[in-house]
Protein backbone atom coordinates (compact mmCIF):
# COMPACT_ATOMS: atom_id res chain seq x y z
CA UNK A 1 0.00 0.00 0.00
CA UNK A 2 2.76 2.34 1.00
CA UNK A 3 4.66 1.41 -2.09
CA UNK A 4 1.63 2.22 -4.14
CA UNK A 5 1.29 5.64 -2.53
CA UNK A 6 4.97 6.17 -3.06
CA UNK A 7 4.47 5.29 -6.67
CA UNK A 8 1.83 7.98 -6.90
CA UNK A 9 4.32 10.63 -5.90
CA UNK A 10 6.54 9.64 -8.78
CA UNK A 11 6.45 12.37 -11.47
CA UNK A 12 5.53 9.96 -14.25
CA UNK A 13 2.64 8.51 -12.31
CA UNK A 14 1.43 11.95 -11.46
CA UNK A 15 1.60 12.90 -15.08
CA UNK A 16 -0.51 9.92 -16.10
CA UNK A 17 -2.99 10.61 -13.35
CA UNK A 18 -3.16 14.23 -14.43
CA UNK A 19 -3.72 13.31 -18.05
CA UNK A 20 -6.61 11.09 -17.05
CA UNK A 21 -8.02 13.90 -14.98
CA UNK A 22 -7.57 16.31 -17.88
CA UNK A 23 -9.46 14.01 -20.24
CA UNK A 24 -12.25 13.69 -17.74
CA UNK A 25 -12.23 17.41 -17.16
CA UNK A 26 -12.30 18.29 -20.85
CA UNK A 27 -15.18 15.92 -21.50
CA UNK A 28 -17.14 17.02 -18.48
CA UNK A 29 -16.34 20.62 -19.14
CA UNK A 30 -17.45 20.43 -22.75
CA UNK A 31 -20.79 19.14 -21.57
CA UNK A 32 -21.18 21.87 -19.00
CA UNK A 33 -20.04 24.58 -21.36
CA UNK A 34 -22.34 23.49 -24.15
CA UNK A 35 -25.16 23.55 -21.66
CA UNK A 36 -24.12 26.96 -20.36
CA UNK A 37 -23.79 28.27 -23.89
CA UNK A 38 -27.23 27.11 -24.86
CA UNK A 39 -28.77 28.32 -21.65
CA UNK A 40 -27.17 31.72 -22.02
CA UNK A 41 -28.31 31.88 -25.62
CA UNK A 42 -31.76 30.90 -24.47
CA UNK A 43 -32.05 33.48 -21.75
CA UNK A 44 -30.61 36.21 -23.92
CA UNK A 45 -33.17 35.34 -26.57
CA UNK A 46 -36.11 35.26 -24.16
CA UNK A 47 -36.51 31.50 -24.29
CA UNK A 48 -35.64 28.79 -21.81
CA UNK A 49 -32.95 26.90 -23.73
CA UNK A 50 -32.61 23.12 -23.31
CA UNK A 51 -35.23 21.96 -20.91
CA UNK A 52 -36.39 18.42 -21.36
CA UNK A 53 -33.43 16.03 -21.02
CA UNK A 54 -32.39 15.89 -17.39
CA UNK A 55 -33.00 18.62 -14.84
CA UNK A 56 -33.09 21.95 -16.71
CA UNK A 57 -31.85 20.14 -19.80
CA UNK A 58 -28.50 19.44 -18.19
CA UNK A 59 -28.11 16.14 -19.97
CA UNK A 60 -28.92 17.54 -23.39
CA UNK A 61 -25.26 17.98 -24.43
CA UNK A 62 -24.59 14.38 -23.41
CA UNK A 63 -27.40 13.16 -25.62
CA UNK A 64 -26.14 15.35 -28.44
CA UNK A 65 -22.68 13.86 -27.97
CA UNK A 66 -24.09 10.35 -28.24
CA UNK A 67 -25.93 11.36 -31.38
CA UNK A 68 -22.71 12.75 -32.84
CA UNK A 69 -20.90 9.49 -32.10
CA UNK A 70 -23.63 7.53 -33.84
CA UNK A 71 -23.29 9.49 -37.04
CA UNK A 72 -21.65 8.22 -40.15
CA UNK A 73 -18.17 9.50 -40.79
CA UNK A 74 -18.01 10.83 -44.31
CA UNK A 75 -14.76 11.55 -46.09
CA UNK A 76 -15.20 13.85 -49.07
CA UNK A 77 -14.34 12.25 -52.40
CA UNK A 78 -11.02 13.56 -53.70
CA UNK A 79 -10.22 14.89 -50.26
CA UNK A 80 -6.93 14.03 -48.62
CA UNK A 81 -7.94 11.23 -46.29
CA UNK A 82 -4.94 11.40 -43.99
CA UNK A 83 -4.93 15.15 -43.54
CA UNK A 84 -8.69 15.21 -43.28
CA UNK A 85 -8.78 12.87 -40.30
CA UNK A 86 -5.51 14.06 -38.78
CA UNK A 87 -6.91 17.56 -38.46
CA UNK A 88 -9.53 17.02 -35.73
CA UNK A 89 -7.07 14.93 -33.71
CA UNK A 90 -4.46 17.61 -34.14
CA UNK A 91 -6.95 20.19 -32.97
CA UNK A 92 -7.68 18.21 -29.88
CA UNK A 93 -4.21 16.98 -28.85
CA UNK A 94 -2.52 20.32 -28.09
CA UNK A 95 -5.47 21.29 -25.99
CA UNK A 96 -4.66 18.42 -23.64
CA UNK A 97 -1.02 19.38 -23.32
CA UNK A 98 -1.97 22.93 -22.54
CA UNK A 99 -3.82 21.80 -19.45
CA UNK A 100 -0.59 20.57 -17.83
CA UNK A 101 0.81 23.87 -16.58
CA UNK A 102 -2.49 25.44 -15.51
CA UNK A 103 -2.34 26.51 -11.85
CA UNK A 104 -5.54 25.00 -10.48
CA UNK A 105 -4.23 25.17 -6.93
CA UNK A 106 -0.98 25.99 -5.23
CA UNK A 107 -0.59 22.48 -3.81
CA UNK A 108 -1.38 20.81 -7.05
CA UNK A 109 1.49 20.58 -9.49
CA UNK A 110 1.33 17.76 -12.01
CA UNK A 111 4.53 18.66 -13.80
CA UNK A 112 7.12 20.84 -12.16
CA UNK A 113 8.29 23.28 -14.77
CA UNK A 114 9.04 26.94 -14.84
CA UNK A 115 8.15 27.65 -18.45
CA UNK A 116 4.43 26.86 -18.31
CA UNK A 117 3.38 29.97 -20.16
CA UNK A 118 5.74 29.24 -23.05
CA UNK A 119 4.40 25.70 -23.30
CA UNK A 120 0.84 26.96 -23.59
CA UNK A 121 1.68 29.62 -26.14
CA UNK A 122 3.68 27.14 -28.21
CA UNK A 123 1.05 24.45 -28.25
CA UNK A 124 -1.91 26.71 -28.73
CA UNK A 125 -0.26 27.85 -31.97
CA UNK A 126 -0.67 24.29 -33.24
CA UNK A 127 -4.44 24.70 -33.30
CA UNK A 128 -4.17 26.87 -36.39
CA UNK A 129 -2.33 24.11 -38.19
CA UNK A 130 -5.25 21.79 -37.62
CA UNK A 131 -7.73 24.25 -39.08
CA UNK A 132 -5.44 24.73 -42.01
CA UNK A 133 -5.18 20.97 -42.58
CA UNK A 134 -8.93 20.55 -42.20
CA UNK A 135 -9.53 23.18 -44.84
CA UNK A 136 -6.98 21.74 -47.21
CA UNK A 137 -7.88 18.10 -46.68
CA UNK A 138 -11.59 18.66 -47.28
CA UNK A 139 -11.10 19.56 -50.92
CA UNK A 140 -13.91 22.05 -50.46
CA UNK A 141 -13.62 25.63 -51.52
CA UNK A 142 -15.51 26.99 -48.53
CA UNK A 143 -13.23 25.03 -46.21
CA UNK A 144 -10.21 26.36 -48.00
CA UNK A 145 -11.38 29.94 -47.57
CA UNK A 146 -12.00 29.22 -43.90
CA UNK A 147 -8.52 27.77 -43.50
CA UNK A 148 -6.95 30.79 -45.18
CA UNK A 149 -8.88 33.10 -42.89
CA UNK A 150 -7.89 31.17 -39.78
CA UNK A 151 -4.19 31.37 -40.58
CA UNK A 152 -4.24 35.12 -41.18
CA UNK A 153 -6.33 35.64 -38.09
CA UNK A 154 -4.11 33.53 -35.83
CA UNK A 155 -0.95 35.22 -37.04
CA UNK A 156 -2.45 38.67 -36.53
CA UNK A 157 -3.70 38.05 -33.03
CA UNK A 158 -0.72 36.08 -31.75
CA UNK A 159 1.32 39.28 -31.76
CA UNK A 160 -0.69 41.50 -29.38
CA UNK A 161 -1.48 38.44 -27.28
CA UNK A 162 2.20 37.67 -26.76
CA UNK A 163 3.00 41.30 -26.05
CA UNK A 164 0.43 41.69 -23.32
CA UNK A 165 1.34 38.31 -21.80
CA UNK A 166 4.96 39.44 -21.77
CA UNK A 167 4.01 42.69 -20.08
CA UNK A 168 2.70 40.66 -17.16
CA UNK A 169 5.57 38.19 -17.24
CA UNK A 170 8.07 41.05 -17.01
CA UNK A 171 6.32 42.48 -13.99
CA UNK A 172 6.50 39.17 -12.20
CA UNK A 173 9.84 38.11 -13.62
CA UNK A 174 8.70 34.58 -14.31
CA UNK A 175 7.19 32.44 -17.04
CA UNK A 176 5.73 29.97 -14.60
CA UNK A 177 1.97 30.36 -14.26
CA UNK A 178 2.17 29.29 -10.59
CA UNK A 179 4.67 31.99 -9.88
CA UNK A 180 2.74 34.62 -11.80
CA UNK A 181 -0.51 33.78 -10.07
CA UNK A 182 1.22 33.56 -6.72
CA UNK A 183 2.79 36.94 -7.30
CA UNK A 184 -0.65 38.52 -7.08
CA UNK A 185 -2.77 38.61 -3.98
CA UNK A 186 -6.17 37.38 -2.99
CA UNK A 187 -7.90 40.71 -3.47
CA UNK A 188 -8.89 42.37 -6.74
CA UNK A 189 -6.69 45.42 -6.27
CA UNK A 190 -3.68 43.15 -6.15
CA UNK A 191 -4.51 41.64 -9.52
CA UNK A 192 -2.96 42.60 -12.83
CA UNK A 193 -6.42 43.10 -14.27
CA UNK A 194 -6.61 46.18 -12.06
CA UNK A 195 -2.96 47.14 -12.18
CA UNK A 196 -2.77 46.75 -15.95
CA UNK A 197 -6.32 46.90 -17.34
CA UNK A 198 -5.14 47.65 -20.87
CA UNK A 199 -3.27 44.36 -21.09
CA UNK A 200 -6.26 42.52 -19.67
CA UNK A 201 -8.56 44.07 -22.26
CA UNK A 202 -6.22 43.26 -25.13
CA UNK A 203 -5.77 39.75 -23.82
CA UNK A 204 -9.52 39.20 -23.70
CA UNK A 205 -10.03 40.45 -27.25
CA UNK A 206 -7.17 38.29 -28.49
CA UNK A 207 -8.49 35.33 -26.55
CA UNK A 208 -11.84 35.58 -28.31
CA UNK A 209 -10.08 35.87 -31.65
CA UNK A 210 -7.66 33.02 -30.98
CA UNK A 211 -10.45 30.66 -30.03
CA UNK A 212 -12.42 31.67 -33.15
CA UNK A 213 -15.41 32.75 -31.15
CA UNK A 214 -18.00 35.23 -32.33
CA UNK A 215 -17.70 38.09 -33.18
CA UNK A 216 -14.37 36.86 -34.53
CA UNK A 217 -15.55 33.45 -35.76
CA UNK A 218 -14.47 34.09 -39.32
CA UNK A 219 -12.92 30.69 -40.09
CA UNK A 220 -16.31 29.08 -39.69
CA UNK A 221 -18.53 32.12 -40.38
CA UNK A 222 -21.52 30.01 -41.28
CA UNK A 223 -23.51 32.75 -42.97
CA UNK A 224 -20.63 33.41 -45.33
CA UNK A 225 -18.63 30.21 -45.56
CA UNK A 226 -21.37 27.70 -44.64
CA UNK A 227 -19.26 26.42 -41.76
CA UNK A 228 -15.79 27.21 -43.11
CA UNK A 229 -13.11 24.69 -42.22
CA UNK A 230 -15.53 22.16 -40.72
CA UNK A 231 -18.06 22.21 -43.56
CA UNK A 232 -17.28 18.63 -44.55
CA UNK A 233 -16.96 17.09 -41.10
CA UNK A 234 -19.63 14.86 -39.71
CA UNK A 235 -20.05 12.87 -36.53
CA UNK A 236 -17.15 12.83 -34.11
CA UNK A 237 -14.86 14.59 -36.57
CA UNK A 238 -16.97 17.62 -36.00
CA UNK A 239 -17.35 16.62 -32.36
CA UNK A 240 -13.59 16.77 -31.82
CA UNK A 241 -13.38 20.24 -33.30
CA UNK A 242 -16.21 21.19 -31.08
CA UNK A 243 -14.57 19.78 -27.96
CA UNK A 244 -11.27 21.39 -28.92
CA UNK A 245 -12.98 24.74 -29.24
CA UNK A 246 -14.37 24.47 -25.74
CA UNK A 247 -11.10 23.11 -24.35
CA UNK A 248 -9.29 26.06 -25.92
CA UNK A 249 -11.79 28.43 -24.40
CA UNK A 250 -11.09 26.96 -20.98
CA UNK A 251 -7.37 27.30 -21.53
CA UNK A 252 -7.46 30.94 -22.51
CA UNK A 253 -9.85 31.67 -19.67
CA UNK A 254 -7.55 29.84 -17.25
CA UNK A 255 -4.50 31.69 -18.52
CA UNK A 256 -6.38 34.95 -18.18
CA UNK A 257 -7.40 34.01 -14.65
CA UNK A 258 -3.83 33.12 -13.73
CA UNK A 259 -2.22 36.14 -15.36
CA UNK A 260 -4.74 38.81 -14.52
CA UNK A 261 -7.11 37.62 -11.83
CA UNK A 262 -4.77 36.16 -9.24
CA UNK A 263 -5.24 32.51 -10.17
CA UNK A 264 -6.49 30.33 -7.36
CA UNK A 265 -6.18 33.00 -4.72
CA UNK A 266 -9.22 34.40 -3.03
CA UNK A 267 -10.70 34.69 0.39
CA UNK A 268 -12.66 31.98 2.23
CA UNK A 269 -13.00 29.35 -0.48
CA UNK A 270 -10.39 26.71 -1.31
CA UNK A 271 -8.13 27.66 -4.23
CA UNK A 272 -9.51 25.37 -6.86
CA UNK A 273 -12.99 26.79 -6.48
CA UNK A 274 -11.76 30.30 -6.89
CA UNK A 275 -9.87 29.32 -9.96
CA UNK A 276 -12.87 27.60 -11.50
CA UNK A 277 -15.09 30.51 -10.57
CA UNK A 278 -12.77 32.94 -12.31
CA UNK A 279 -12.50 30.72 -15.38
CA UNK A 280 -16.22 30.39 -15.67
CA UNK A 281 -16.83 34.10 -15.21
CA UNK A 282 -14.55 34.79 -18.16
CA UNK A 283 -16.17 32.02 -20.18
CA UNK A 284 -19.57 33.41 -19.39
CA UNK A 285 -18.45 36.79 -20.67
CA UNK A 286 -17.13 35.28 -23.89
CA UNK A 287 -20.39 33.41 -24.42
CA UNK A 288 -22.37 36.55 -23.72
CA UNK A 289 -20.37 38.37 -26.41
CA UNK A 290 -21.22 35.70 -28.94
CA UNK A 291 -24.96 36.09 -28.51
CA UNK A 292 -24.86 39.87 -28.71
CA UNK A 293 -22.74 40.99 -31.63
CA UNK A 294 -22.64 40.61 -35.38
CA UNK A 295 -19.54 39.22 -37.00
CA UNK A 296 -16.78 41.59 -38.08
CA UNK A 297 -15.48 41.50 -41.59
CA UNK A 298 -12.18 39.91 -42.40
CA UNK A 299 -10.21 43.04 -43.20
CA UNK A 300 -11.73 44.84 -40.23
CA UNK A 301 -10.59 41.98 -38.02
CA UNK A 302 -7.03 42.31 -39.21
CA UNK A 303 -7.21 46.09 -38.91
CA UNK A 304 -8.29 45.81 -35.31
CA UNK A 305 -5.27 43.70 -34.59
CA UNK A 306 -2.59 45.50 -36.57
CA UNK A 307 -3.78 49.07 -36.22
CA UNK A 308 -5.14 49.10 -32.69
CA UNK A 309 -4.24 46.14 -30.55
CA UNK A 310 -0.62 45.68 -31.59
CA UNK A 311 0.41 49.32 -31.04
CA UNK A 312 -1.53 49.43 -27.80
CA UNK A 313 0.07 46.21 -26.63
CA UNK A 314 3.51 47.52 -27.57
CA UNK A 315 2.80 50.67 -25.61
CA UNK A 316 1.63 48.63 -22.66
CA UNK A 317 4.69 46.42 -22.85
CA UNK A 318 7.00 49.42 -22.93
CA UNK A 319 5.17 50.91 -19.97
CA UNK A 320 5.59 47.67 -18.04
CA UNK A 321 9.31 47.57 -18.82
CA UNK A 322 9.75 51.15 -17.64
CA UNK A 323 7.81 50.57 -14.45
CA UNK A 324 9.76 47.41 -13.68
CA UNK A 325 13.13 49.03 -14.32
CA UNK A 326 12.27 52.05 -12.19
CA UNK A 327 11.19 49.75 -9.42
CA UNK A 328 14.39 47.69 -9.66
CA UNK A 329 16.50 50.82 -9.52
CA UNK A 330 15.17 51.69 -6.12
Amino acid sequence: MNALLLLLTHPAARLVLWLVLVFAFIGFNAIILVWVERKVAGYVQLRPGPLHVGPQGLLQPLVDGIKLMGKQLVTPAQGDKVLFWAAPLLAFAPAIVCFLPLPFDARFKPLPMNLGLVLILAFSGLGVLSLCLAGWGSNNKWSLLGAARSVAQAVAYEVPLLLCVLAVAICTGSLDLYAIAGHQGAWPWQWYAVKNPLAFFIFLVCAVAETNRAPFDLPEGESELTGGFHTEYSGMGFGLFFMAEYANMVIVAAVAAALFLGGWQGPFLPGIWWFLLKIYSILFFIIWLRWTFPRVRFDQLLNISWKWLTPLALFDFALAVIVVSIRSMK
Partner: protein
Amino acid sequence: MKRIKKAFTGLKSLAVGLGVTGRAFYAKNVTVIYPKEEVDNLASYRGHVELVGKEDAPDVPKCVACGSCAKACPSNAFTILCPVPPKEGEAASDPPVMGPAPQRGAKTPSKFILDFSLCSLCGQCVKTCPTKGLRFSNDPYLVSFTREDLKLDLLARLHSQAANSQPVPVPDTESVDK
Protein backbone atom coordinates in the same frame (compact mmCIF):
# COMPACT_ATOMS: atom_id res chain seq x y z
CA MET B 1 -7.72 62.15 -32.32
CA LYS B 2 -10.95 61.82 -34.27
CA ARG B 3 -10.29 58.14 -34.82
CA ILE B 4 -9.65 57.57 -31.15
CA LYS B 5 -12.92 59.28 -30.34
CA LYS B 6 -14.63 57.11 -32.90
CA ALA B 7 -13.08 54.01 -31.37
CA PHE B 8 -14.39 55.00 -27.96
CA THR B 9 -17.94 55.60 -29.17
CA GLY B 10 -17.65 52.24 -30.90
CA LEU B 11 -16.62 50.54 -27.69
CA LYS B 12 -19.43 52.30 -25.91
CA SER B 13 -21.93 51.01 -28.44
CA LEU B 14 -20.67 47.50 -27.78
CA ALA B 15 -21.16 47.95 -24.06
CA VAL B 16 -24.68 49.27 -24.67
CA GLY B 17 -25.40 46.21 -26.78
CA LEU B 18 -24.18 43.95 -24.01
CA GLY B 19 -26.48 45.83 -21.68
CA VAL B 20 -29.48 45.09 -23.89
CA THR B 21 -28.82 41.37 -24.02
CA GLY B 22 -27.85 41.41 -20.37
CA ARG B 23 -31.23 42.83 -19.43
CA ALA B 24 -32.85 40.04 -21.38
CA PHE B 25 -31.38 37.58 -18.86
CA TYR B 26 -33.90 38.45 -16.26
CA ALA B 27 -36.73 39.28 -18.63
CA LYS B 28 -39.58 36.86 -18.86
CA ASN B 29 -39.43 34.07 -21.40
CA VAL B 30 -41.85 34.51 -24.25
CA THR B 31 -41.78 30.91 -25.38
CA VAL B 32 -44.80 28.69 -25.03
CA ILE B 33 -43.40 25.34 -24.05
CA TYR B 34 -45.45 22.98 -26.14
CA PRO B 35 -46.82 20.38 -25.27
CA LYS B 36 -46.68 21.34 -21.60
CA GLU B 37 -48.47 24.55 -22.41
CA GLU B 38 -50.66 25.41 -25.33
CA VAL B 39 -51.27 28.63 -27.15
CA ASP B 40 -54.42 30.44 -26.10
CA ASN B 41 -55.49 32.06 -29.36
CA LEU B 42 -56.99 29.11 -31.18
CA ALA B 43 -60.50 30.51 -31.09
CA SER B 44 -59.69 32.78 -34.02
CA TYR B 45 -57.71 30.17 -35.91
CA ARG B 46 -59.34 28.96 -39.09
CA GLY B 47 -58.44 25.36 -39.68
CA HIS B 48 -59.94 22.93 -42.14
CA VAL B 49 -63.62 23.36 -42.92
CA GLU B 50 -66.32 21.24 -41.36
CA LEU B 51 -70.01 20.73 -41.95
CA VAL B 52 -72.57 22.63 -39.93
CA GLY B 53 -75.52 20.66 -38.57
CA LYS B 54 -79.09 21.85 -38.59
CA GLU B 55 -80.20 23.68 -35.47
CA ASP B 56 -82.92 21.19 -34.67
CA ALA B 57 -81.00 18.10 -35.74
CA PRO B 58 -77.31 18.54 -35.08
CA ASP B 59 -76.27 15.37 -36.88
CA VAL B 60 -77.96 16.29 -40.13
CA PRO B 61 -75.86 18.63 -42.22
CA LYS B 62 -77.29 21.83 -43.62
CA CYS B 63 -75.58 20.87 -46.83
CA VAL B 64 -77.89 20.33 -49.80
CA ALA B 65 -75.25 18.63 -51.93
CA CYS B 66 -75.24 21.31 -54.59
CA GLY B 67 -71.52 20.91 -55.19
CA SER B 68 -70.76 24.62 -55.39
CA CYS B 69 -68.00 24.32 -52.80
CA ALA B 70 -66.33 21.63 -54.87
CA LYS B 71 -66.58 23.90 -57.88
CA ALA B 72 -65.23 26.94 -56.07
CA CYS B 73 -62.28 25.12 -54.57
CA PRO B 74 -59.04 26.13 -56.31
CA SER B 75 -57.41 22.80 -55.62
CA ASN B 76 -60.24 20.28 -55.98
CA ALA B 77 -60.03 19.21 -52.38
CA PHE B 78 -63.66 18.10 -52.07
CA THR B 79 -65.18 14.78 -52.98
CA ILE B 80 -68.94 14.96 -52.49
CA LEU B 81 -70.81 11.86 -53.50
CA CYS B 82 -74.53 11.30 -53.94
CA PRO B 83 -76.45 8.36 -55.33
CA VAL B 84 -76.83 8.57 -59.08
CA PRO B 85 -80.51 8.35 -59.99
CA PRO B 86 -81.14 5.26 -62.12
CA LYS B 87 -81.57 5.81 -65.82
CA GLU B 88 -84.98 5.44 -67.25
CA GLY B 89 -86.05 1.86 -67.56
CA GLU B 90 -83.29 0.62 -65.26
CA ALA B 91 -83.84 -0.69 -61.80
CA ALA B 92 -82.10 1.08 -58.93
CA SER B 93 -78.97 -0.85 -58.13
CA ASP B 94 -78.19 -1.82 -54.61
CA PRO B 95 -75.97 -0.37 -53.26
CA PRO B 96 -76.67 2.68 -55.38
CA VAL B 97 -74.00 3.92 -57.75
CA MET B 98 -72.35 7.01 -56.38
CA GLY B 99 -71.48 10.05 -58.40
CA PRO B 100 -70.17 13.50 -57.72
CA ALA B 101 -72.65 16.06 -56.47
CA PRO B 102 -74.95 17.55 -57.61
CA GLN B 103 -77.19 14.64 -58.53
CA ARG B 104 -80.83 14.91 -59.34
CA GLY B 105 -82.96 14.04 -56.35
CA ALA B 106 -80.15 14.03 -53.81
CA LYS B 107 -80.78 16.59 -51.07
CA THR B 108 -78.01 15.57 -48.73
CA PRO B 109 -74.53 14.28 -49.42
CA SER B 110 -73.87 10.58 -48.88
CA LYS B 111 -70.17 11.14 -48.62
CA PHE B 112 -68.41 14.41 -47.93
CA ILE B 113 -64.65 14.06 -48.06
CA LEU B 114 -62.17 16.92 -47.72
CA ASP B 115 -58.64 16.13 -48.80
CA PHE B 116 -56.85 18.42 -46.38
CA SER B 117 -53.49 17.75 -48.00
CA LEU B 118 -54.73 19.77 -50.98
CA CYS B 119 -56.54 22.47 -49.06
CA SER B 120 -54.93 25.89 -48.83
CA LEU B 121 -57.45 27.28 -46.33
CA CYS B 122 -58.53 30.08 -48.64
CA GLY B 123 -62.16 29.84 -47.58
CA GLN B 124 -63.72 30.06 -51.03
CA CYS B 125 -65.95 27.09 -50.15
CA VAL B 126 -67.28 28.74 -47.00
CA LYS B 127 -67.97 31.97 -48.88
CA THR B 128 -69.73 30.28 -51.74
CA CYS B 129 -71.95 27.88 -49.79
CA PRO B 130 -75.57 28.91 -50.37
CA THR B 131 -76.85 27.31 -47.15
CA LYS B 132 -74.02 28.44 -44.86
CA GLY B 133 -73.43 24.77 -44.32
CA LEU B 134 -69.65 24.97 -44.01
CA ARG B 135 -67.52 26.66 -41.41
CA PHE B 136 -63.93 26.67 -40.30
CA SER B 137 -62.97 24.42 -37.43
CA ASN B 138 -60.28 25.70 -35.15
CA ASP B 139 -58.31 22.56 -34.73
CA PRO B 140 -54.64 22.96 -35.63
CA TYR B 141 -53.59 19.55 -34.32
CA LEU B 142 -53.78 17.66 -37.54
CA VAL B 143 -50.68 15.61 -38.11
CA SER B 144 -50.26 12.44 -40.04
CA PHE B 145 -47.67 10.27 -41.69
CA THR B 146 -49.74 9.51 -44.74
CA ARG B 147 -51.79 11.55 -47.13
CA GLU B 148 -54.64 9.08 -46.77
CA ASP B 149 -55.15 10.14 -43.15
CA LEU B 150 -55.73 13.68 -44.26
CA LYS B 151 -58.77 12.74 -46.28
CA LEU B 152 -61.26 13.88 -43.71
CA ASP B 153 -64.74 12.41 -43.69
CA LEU B 154 -66.68 15.50 -42.70
CA LEU B 155 -70.01 13.68 -42.36
CA ALA B 156 -68.50 11.28 -39.86
CA ARG B 157 -66.99 14.24 -38.09
CA LEU B 158 -70.38 15.92 -37.85
CA HIS B 159 -71.97 12.75 -36.53
CA SER B 160 -69.36 12.29 -33.86
CA GLN B 161 -69.63 15.94 -32.86
CA ALA B 162 -73.37 15.54 -32.53
CA ALA B 163 -73.03 12.24 -30.69
CA ASN B 164 -70.67 13.79 -28.18
CA SER B 165 -73.90 15.37 -26.96
CA GLN B 166 -72.36 18.74 -26.63
CA PRO B 167 -74.43 21.31 -28.36
CA VAL B 168 -72.62 22.07 -31.58
CA PRO B 169 -70.45 25.07 -30.88
CA VAL B 170 -71.69 28.28 -32.37
CA PRO B 171 -69.84 29.18 -35.54
CA ASP B 172 -67.13 31.20 -34.06
CA THR B 173 -64.89 32.36 -36.81
CA GLU B 174 -64.98 35.98 -35.86
CA SER B 175 -64.40 35.78 -32.16
CA VAL B 176 -61.09 36.71 -30.68
CA ASP B 177 -58.87 34.88 -28.30
CA LYS B 178 -58.38 37.39 -25.54
